[in-house]
């Protein structure tokens, strides 16, 4: 069993876990965590694709690797905005929850 295949399976499992967490976890922070997990799973699979493309003396295809780096930064940006939103919502509403019906009287 190659490392690539193993990590592909691990990545799929992580995606499944995070999708589950994203659906059922109540708190937005937990959802955010699940999203990060989802992102990392997707990146991991991209890493496996990169590893499969090992050739010309390189251990992996550098293009997906570079893209993953960009992806991680983008995901971090999302996390930063989400955390800031969440904290402000916590201050305003006393509780950070996105469950309530919005704007309905």
């Amino acid at each position: 069993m190659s490392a690539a295949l193993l990590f592909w399976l691990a990545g799929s499992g992580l995606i499944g876990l995070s999708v589950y967490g994203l659906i059922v976890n109540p708190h937005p922070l937990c959802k955010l965590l699940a999203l990060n997990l989802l992102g990392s799973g997707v990146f991991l699979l991209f890493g496996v694709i990169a590893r499969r493309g090992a050739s010309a003396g390189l251990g992996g295809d550098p293009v997906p690797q570079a893209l993953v780096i960009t992806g991680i930064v983008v995901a971090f940006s999302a996390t930063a905005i989400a955390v800031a939103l969440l904290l402000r919502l916590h201050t305003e509403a006393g509780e950070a929850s996105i469950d309530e019906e919005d704007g309905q009287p």
Partner: protein
Amino acid sequence: METGFDIALALLLLCVGGWSVIARNMMTAVIVFIAYGLLLSLAWVRLHAIDVSLTEAAIGSGATGLLMVIAAHKVAGDTKRVVQLSRGFHVLAAVFAALVAVGIAALAFVLPGEPSSLAAPVLERLPDSGLGNPVAGVLFVFRSFDTLLEKVVLLLALIGVWALARDADWGGVPGLRLFRERHSVLTLLARTLPPIGFVFAIYMTWAGADVPGGAFQGGTVLAAMWILVMVAGVRRPPRISSPPLRLAIVAGPVVFLAIGFLGFLAPGAFLAYPEGFAKPLIVAMETALTLSIAVILGLLIAGPPKGEDAP
């Protein structure tokens, strides 16, 4: 031996990841998530992606983890849930998630047998730029347009975080105060680590052109030092309206854009480097970017301005 390690690592990833999803306590979940990030960077090493591994450790685990810790700390009291989910719904969600996972796993066996790779073309064109690290080559030469946009994304993230300040607090200092009292160990660390971190960061940036490392990793290390200093209360965070701070924020993007436009003049295409000047230009760009990234990451973690002396 190696396979055994990989199997253990993969299993561990799944377990730790799963734990962070189902953990009842939010702080536990976040701490577990940080541990997961570190394991993940190991996995990246196993996938021969050292650059990614560094980035994952620094940003995916470190910076993200820190943000989450701050958030978990503040919202620890939230328990109420408006919508109660039935057990059946949980099962349904689990079934769908499992289907997705199985489907993706199955794809491993149906991907085209002959893997396509851009490794060879990258290596072929890399020497023109004078860089030695192929990942840096992709980031700053072949797909520098992505990287430029990613910097804009970071700026927007900063705008997004700052948008959440109160009007009255605008221009004030970010409200990162985890510890009210002086913490002796923290203070000690905050006084001793930064110089080391600074040197390390510069090395990483410089080396990133040829071996794994680069502006992001360097910037993250710098940002970490800065955060440490701020958290420990050794230095106050700057006011977000201060002109030097603003300059530091935009320095990287400005240099990047300027070099991009320079490309119109010299070789005749946006973001193309003039013959022979590629490496110095990229290093200049990376230096400016390291500064900007450090400042932006630090500010993203520090959060929106909170008013000058508000508790």
